[in-house]
């Protein structure tokens, strides 16, 4: 029988109340969907002294247009990301990823805020948000601050969210000519990725003006492929270009051998999935 170590539980009734409680109680943690945190607590990989349940803070549960940005509340569930027509229209890589994140029952509970804060290198939404160059909004007692995704992950399972702070929102700029895709290979339904690649391109006048590529499960954190992004900028999209970007992905990823496969296989996958994601993202940008 797997049971977490003892902890105190409280149900937050306001965001400020949750933040105050986080500050007051050392080693307290926010719980939302709980589908990563509770398994970790059962294995004693996490032993918070207090859980602050934010599931009643439904003000944090939305996907909406705000000017030239899409804003996603931290408590938005995977199933809502999967079914969002707004996201499918502007950032279809969310749907690509959500179809292969865990399973439909888990997707009913897990949240985008929890996924990003879990900061597991094999988690898909971190790569998705990195590729579309999202910013995250972090709220503390003194107000909010924003952090770009490329500065959000400080290391494995470590994020820019500080003590007494909560990730409250993900914001993504809508830019013209954009297309995006997420490609993943997993051993079986619901498993973590062996490797996954997220790609976004913005095309104007037949030329890639900007690109974002991020890899899951092939390093200690989500890997931003900045070298490949630089290669793509200013170039017309082509199979040869995607091939070169894939070669960079194979070189720049840092997989470890484990039960999901040896290093050379994971490097090969990173390259192939990068190429496929770029191909699909470009087709969507041009359609």
């Amino acid at each position: 029988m797997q049971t977490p170590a003892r902890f105190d539980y409280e149900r937050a009734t306001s965001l400020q109340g949750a933040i105050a409680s986080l500050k007051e109680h050392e080693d307290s943690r926010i719980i939302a969907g709980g589908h990563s945190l509770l398994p970790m607590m059962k294995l004693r990989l996490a032993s918070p002294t207090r859980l602050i349940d934010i599931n009643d803070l439904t003000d944090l549960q939305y996907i909406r247009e705000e000017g030239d940005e899409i804003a996603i509340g931290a408590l938005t569930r995977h199933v809502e990301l999967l079914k969002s027509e707004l996201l499918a229209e502007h950032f279809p890589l969310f749907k690509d990823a959500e179809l292969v994140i865990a399973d439909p029952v888990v997707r009913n509970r897990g949240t985008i805020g929890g996924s990003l804060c879990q900061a597991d290198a094999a988690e898909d939404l971190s790569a998705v948000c990195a590729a579309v160059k999202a910013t995250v909004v972090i709220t503390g007692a003194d107000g909010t601050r924003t952090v770009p995704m490329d500065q959000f992950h400080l290391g494995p399972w470590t994020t820019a969210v500080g003590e007494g702070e909560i990730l409250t929102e993900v914001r993504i700029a809508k830019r013209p000519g954009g297309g995006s895709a997420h490609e993943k290979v997993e051993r079986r339904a619901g498993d973590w990725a062996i490797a996954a690649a997220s790609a976004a391109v913005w095309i104007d006048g037949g030329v890639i003006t900007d690109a974002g590529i991020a890899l899951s499960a092939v390093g200690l954190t989500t890997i931003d492929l900045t070298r490949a992004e630089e290669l793509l900028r200013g170039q017309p999209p082509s199979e040869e270009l995607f091939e070169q970007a894939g070669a960079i992905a194979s070189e720049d990823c840092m997989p470890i051998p484990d039960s999901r496969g040896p290093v050379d296989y994971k490097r090969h996958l990173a390259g192939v999935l990068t190429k496929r994601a770029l191909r699909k993202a470009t087709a969507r940008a041009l359609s």
Partner: protein
Amino acid sequence: MNISININGETVTRDVEPRTLLVHFIRDTPGLTGTHWGCDTSNCGACVVQMDGQPLKSCTALAAMCEGHEIRTVEALEVDGKLDPIQQGFHEKHALQCGFCTPGMLMTTRALLDENPDPTEAEIRMAISGSICRCTGYQNIVAAVRWAAENAEAEVQS
């Protein structure tokens, strides 16, 4: 802490530790052992119940998190001796052998049919992708869900 949860229409109150998982709350207090306690890691789906109509893996929810929500377990499917069409479908199509995964399969597929009364085979397979069955090879489970979809008029309760 004192927790009150509405389970199958009845309020169940018990003094439990905050770390009590929903699956144990359901099985221990009202003694509703139809909900099976399986892998304990949210992989196998044997413990699936419905919370506010949505399937939930009850091994990965604290009982405390479910206060104020409506939990429905496999025991609620049969009403006055009449099986729910999804139960009848499992019977007609021989969709179980050992039966360990069955409660979770039933609650998962009942929720699917409530949302999508005429699912395709692909939609059924996606819906049960978080539930593991080591006996049937899934073929008969898919057939049972189709049987229930085609015989929905047999439904007498929700």
